[in-house]
């Protein structure tokens, strides 16, 4: 069974009856490993469509959870259950609950590393005080405003206040959380959250591929949020020094925020500063200082190291890229595509109005970036298949567009693999306007292909 991966959360959804025989047929370790490769840092099994389960049925998953958490520092658990199922799981694993339970996927996403919607007002209640506190800390760290109800009575009263809370958390349990370096994007800066002791393990928990691809895609400012770091040792020092050196050729800046040197030798700070790393006390010192942001390169996501040109291998594979894109859009819109023109030049978009764009990078045997520019009409039509209805909700369209570009990326990966070319794909990125896209791509040279879907012009651009 394949998982659906969204915002770093991979969810498997078995249906029907889970017992000792069926569970291992539903999900294998290979399925989970494949999900981890899609940048999932949380692996969940949804019980939404399970009508019957017993302890043996869950055990098969729990054993896999333990292996995965150890190997990949991934958060694991179950989600999408009602009170009866929550009670049953608690009864089965009374003193050995070391996985997470999230009442819904929405709640799970609040605890995921790759969350994006911050500042939610969240009411939470757990009869276990240590659980309430643990959840509140995690939520606060992730940029939300948690409000803890101390008792069931208080929870019942507070819940009546309509519209006071964006999300209400109950029947949820935080087992061992993953210890991957959490990543989020704010504007054109990428923020990594690190905590506790930084040692050689940072090399395993930091997603270096994601970082490198962010550099390729054009990000230049990387902030390590280090309020909760107690100390670092020389292995971590070397890691960050190397990271800074490798980013220098892109003119990237690495900053630490909130790192104290009470238990870390001050000489480490000097070494890191020599590598070009900067230190700030508060996140707002950077994010609210526009002048500084501009100096650090976060006001524009333009890729300084853009001298990379299209190479022969990439051009040879062009039909595969176009084929993947065309087949995906045709599938999503049930319309036929007609190729109109092909040019090799800098990206040229004559009409910027009513268009949205998205991009996805790929790396491995070959590397580069696919940019797709959709007339809003085609984007809406393509999204209808996934959403199931027409919508004008821009956020939803952009979200769905990201899924669509992910499909294109996945298809490219498969087509290239069939020809013996191995690549991985990055997370997709969407742009609300063409101007936002041009900040990243206007200086890039690439192949521009104009396609027409039912007379709507659609633009494909392949670059490095």
């Amino acid at each position, binding site marked *: *069974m*394949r*998982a*659906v*991966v*969204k915002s770093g959360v991979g*969810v498997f*959804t*078995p*249906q*029907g*009856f*889970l017992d000792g*025989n*069926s569970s*291992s*047929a*539903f999900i294998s370790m290979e399925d989970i490993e494949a999900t981890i490769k*899609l940048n999932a840092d949380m692996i969940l099994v949804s019980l*939404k*469509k*399970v*009508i*019957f389960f017993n302890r043996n049925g869950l055990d098969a998953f729990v054993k896999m959870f333990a292996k995965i958490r150890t190997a990949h520092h991934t958060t694991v658990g179950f989600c999408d259950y009602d009170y009866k199922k929550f009670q049953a799981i608690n009864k089965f694993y009374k003193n050995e609950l070391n996985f997470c339970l999230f009442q819904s996927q929405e709640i799970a996403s609040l605890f995921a590393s790759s969350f994006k919607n911050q500042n939610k007002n969240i009411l939470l209640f757990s009869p276990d005080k240590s659980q309430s506190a643990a959840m509140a800390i995690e939520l606060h760290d992730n940029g939300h405003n948690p409000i803890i109800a101390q008792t069931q009575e208080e929870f019942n009263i507070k819940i009546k206040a309509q519209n006071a809370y964006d999300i209400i958390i109950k029947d949820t349990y935080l087992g061992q959380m993953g210890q991957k370096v959490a990543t989020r994007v704010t504007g054109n800066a990428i923020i990594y959250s690190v905590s506790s002791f930084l040692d050689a393990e940072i090399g395993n928990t930091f997603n270096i591929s994601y970082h490198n691809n962010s550099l390729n895609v054009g990000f230049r400012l990387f902030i390590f949020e280090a309020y909760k770091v107690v100390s670092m040792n020389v292995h971590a020092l070397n890691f960050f020094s190397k990271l800074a050196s490798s980013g220098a050729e892109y003119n990237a800046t690495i900053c630490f925020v909130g790192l104290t040197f009470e238990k870390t030798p001050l000489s480490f700070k000097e070494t890191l500063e020599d590598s070009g790393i900067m230190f700030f006390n508060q996140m707002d010192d950077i994010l609210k200082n526009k002048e500084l942001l501009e100096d650090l390169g976060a006001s524009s996501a333009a890729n300084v190291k853009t001298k990379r040109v299209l190479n022969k291998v990439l051009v040879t594979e062009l039909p595969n890229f176009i084929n993947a894109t065309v*087949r*995906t859009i*045709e*599938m999503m819109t*049930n319309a036929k595509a007609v190729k109109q023109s092909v040019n090799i030049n800098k990206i040229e978009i004559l009409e910027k109005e009513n268009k949205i764009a998205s991009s996805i990078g790929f790396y491995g045997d070959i590397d580069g970036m696919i940019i797709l520019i959709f007339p809003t009409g085609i984007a809406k039509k393509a999204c*209808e*298949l*996934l959403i*199931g209805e027409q919508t004008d909700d821009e956020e939803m369209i952009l979200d769905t567009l990201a*899924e*669509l570009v*992910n*499909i294109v990326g*996945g*298809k490219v990966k*498969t087509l290239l693999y069939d020809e013996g070319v191995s690549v991985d794909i990055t997370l997709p990125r969407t742009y609300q306007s063409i101007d936002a896209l041009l900040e990243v791509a206007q200086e890039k040279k690439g192949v521009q292909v104009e396609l027409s879907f039912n007379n709507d012009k659609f633009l494909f651009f392949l670059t490095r």
Partner: protein
Amino acid sequence: MITQDKIDGFIRKIPPSPKILKVTLMFLEKGELVKAAQIAKEDLALSAYLRVLVNKPIYGFKNQVNDISQIFGILGVARSQQAVYNYMITLLSPDKWKLFKLNKTSFENLQADLSANWHKILVYLNINDKDIGSSITLLPASVIVSEALFREHMDEVSLLRSVHAIDLNTILVRLCSIDLFDICEQISIKWEMSDNVALIIQASSGIKPTNDVTLNNLGKWMHLLLFYTLSKPNFIEAGLNDFIDFQIDYAQDVYDDFSKVMDL
């Protein structure tokens, strides 16, 4: 990906029920088991199918049964009719499965599991109606239709489902405004099955309840039975567990009785 033309083409290609089967069913309808068996024997493929089907462990017969008259005699009118319809459905199945990891035997096992358990359910519900008994035979047709329509689009479907939880039935509805169960209904019409068969099958989709309380209730049982069957390891591994969405709320109110019948 899939167009209305392709669906129309599939429906057009559904063959009319063969003459021997029509006559066999006619005699079964009249309760004339001996005459029905004599006709059925003329179709060697049907005879072979019936022998394999009733000798599967789920039918629970202690001794091997080979003679068609004996088979019809043991099964009785309703279950004999059900067995003949099961055979008719296999006429639509592909020689080689591509979308689902099935073969002739595993598909017949699916039919046998569904039919035998449907019989248990009808006994529990005290329903003795030939058409209702046969309605279960149309359910695996939804698997055949999925295979026929989606087998050339496996990569697209797989990629689509890696980013969005969407079942084949929903994809079909959103692309062509028709679902798998509508196509099954077309099969039932072409094969002159009773109207109730189509109504139960539509209700068993879990998304199209019928106003007839009894038939709707049977739809719930059938929906639950389908997912009970598709939760077996061999069918999960065949990729059948999530080809349509399990509507847990729809089937919830018959679950307790279902668990009694299935001894859960």
